[in-house]
């Protein structure tokens, strides 16, 4: 769900996400470099933790709201909030509004929702960037992360990726299907989740891409973990990491 008339502008707050905080610092760094190349002045609120989505998806909305209230406080102000994850961004602009529907502090949650952007969506539809400089000579499969269905994120990421020299996007079958991660779904439904992931990997690897690329580290952590354990020759890479690498060749 895209919220129209979201504030753009080049003074932004960055939500790095808990996965980047715990595992994928390289993706958060890439995001910073990409945003800086786009001329952004980045504020990183130190007290940020998580968007609360794990509890939200588990059905423990009181726990999730506790985390969201903290997040709303941390990201106060008027700047756009940019998130290198479709899933966490969707938690801010959609999930949070749903879980606060009957709460008195809904307006504050809505205010944050109305300023929240997934990274690719922000670059293309917020800042108006139409192409990306540099080279990245590789064949990639682009997985549209599910939480950005119906938003501009998938098309935006593809547009930028396809403008990079040397990069070839390899199509694959059943592209609309989920990778099988689904947060805690992956631990409460391990067989279904892994089967979904293996099917996704089969489709992706049929075209022999060098990388599977997405705007969400959660999908990539799951797909990468499955690929590594099953010896599938495909490496996960976040969309921002490709933009960052392309910049380095450009400079």
């Amino acid at each position, binding site marked *: 769900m895209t919220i129209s008339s979201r504030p753009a502008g080049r003074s932004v707050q960055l939500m*790095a996400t*808990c996965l*980047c*905080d*715990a*595992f*994928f*610092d390289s993706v*958060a*760094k890439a995001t*910073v470099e990409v945003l800086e190349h786009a001329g952004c002045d980045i504020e*990183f609120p*130190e007290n*940020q*933790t*998580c968007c*609360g989505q*794990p*509890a939200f998806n*588990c*059905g*423990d*909305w009181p*726990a*999730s709201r*506790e*985390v969201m*209230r*903290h997040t709303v406080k941390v990201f106060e102000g008027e700047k756009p909030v940019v998130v290198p994850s479709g899933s966490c961004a969707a938690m801010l602009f959609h999930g949070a509004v*749903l879980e606060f529907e009957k709460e008195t502090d809904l307006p504050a949650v809505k205010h944050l929702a109305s300023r929240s952007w997934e990274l690719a969506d922000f670059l293309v539809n917020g800042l108006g960037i139409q192409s990306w400089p540099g080279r990245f000579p590789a064949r990639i499969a682009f997985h549209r992360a*599910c939480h950005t*269905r*119906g938003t501009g994120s998938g098309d935006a990421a593809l547009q930028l990726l396809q403008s990079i020299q040397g990069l070839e996007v390899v199509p694959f079958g*059943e592209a*609309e*299907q*989920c990778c*099988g*991660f*689904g*947060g805690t*779904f*992956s*631990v*409460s*439904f*391990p*067989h*279904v989740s*892994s*089967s*979904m*992931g293996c*099917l996704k990997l089969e489709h992706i690897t049929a075209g022999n891409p060098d990388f599977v690329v997405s705007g969400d580290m959660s999908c990539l*952590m*799951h797909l*990468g*973990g*499955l690929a*590594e354990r099953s010896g599938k020759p495909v490496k996960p890479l976040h969309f921002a990491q490709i933009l960052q690498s392309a910049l380095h060749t450009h400079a």
Partner: protein
Amino acid sequence: MPEQKVELFARRLDPGVQKAVHDNSAAGTLKRYSILGGDYDTPDELRRLAGQIRQHSIEHLDTYLEQAEKSLHRHGAHVHFAVTAEDACQAVSGILERAGARKVVKSKSMISEEIHLNDHLATRGIESVETDLGEYIIQIDGDHPSHIVKPIIHKNRRDIARSFEREGLGDYNDDPETITRRARSFMRRKYLEADAGITGANFVSAESGRLVLVTNEGNSRFCLAAPRVHIALVGIEKVIPSDADLAVLLNLLGRSATGQQLTVYTEFINGPALTGRPSGPREMHVIFVDNRRSEILASDCREILRCIRCGACLNVCPVYRQASGHAYRSVYPGPVGAVLSPLLAGKKFKELADLPKASSLCGACNEVCPVDIPIPDLLLKLRNRGHEEHAPSPGTPPMGAFAMLASSPLLWRAAMQGSRAMNLVPLDKLPLPYLQPWLKTRTLPEWRGGSFRRWMKSRHSR
């Protein structure tokens, strides 16, 4: 650790059945996509319009139901209202007994499954034969449909040939055309013998009182050709304001359900045979069934009542494709079933409260839904209700500690820093019940807690 029921079912599912369900569903999704995209420039706008029509219909259901009743009366039909499944069954058998009807032919109707009508009629000594081929096979096998529009998606033609042989419908022959011809000649006899025909309804127009039925086999027409009595079982939510709305809904229904521009047969039924209108049963009864739909209408999940039973959400659902319909243990499987079934269960909500969890919340169901039902949002609301009512949810980690940590920035940062110690521990050897299922099929990346924060700080202090 106890397992989620859908997970357990999927794990034990015969690989051949799983593949059949997957391939058939994937083909259905492709067909739907190509025909909708080929015929309309902006199919999503059409879906949203249809969603608005259905939402309007259910939000003004009181008005439209009354109007539909009046319109149906005008045509000479009898109208009944049944609050519970039991009431609906009693209404059907009452009508049949008053008419002296002993033999019934039935066309496919999900609500008749919902109220277990055939079982009820059997106890009254009334023979009821399903005439949709798939439903007939389900009936002779004592099985349950595993898909809303493709009830035998889980069976292959060899299974069916064996069932036909057992039922005395000829020697074993698994040629689909032979199977169909045998069913056809058996059904023809049943149509002629029947006293009454029972159907569902896809839509009832409040304005005109027209009852709309779609089929691909033409069996509902046969059900109404020879019998004296027609009984239509209709969920109260099936009412739409006017015939004009059918232009949107019928165009979406066939395309979404089976990738057809229109189903082979679309019937508009205007009431029983009367002077000047000689064809059809002489007696027509429409039974509007509530069976907890009013409760759903009063809940915050009322959008699910928009559903027009096309099955597109089943076809596209990756969990349904892995687990198949019977995993949902209810009449309505797949994403729509994961919402509808626990709601229809009433006081037994907790028994099906696991269904809303059997989803990665990928949203593909919402994307294909012809009436734009926000299924993932409804699944989430039901998860929250399950949590509030302490429904068992195996494999779901408790979230209290997480929430405490994630609302205390100092603790959070310390935990992130400390998490690096996890790299030194053989995680797969530790009794961590929520981590082991992950590690069984996947590796975990290196813990690098706090690295980004340090890097960010160092840049600022430069």
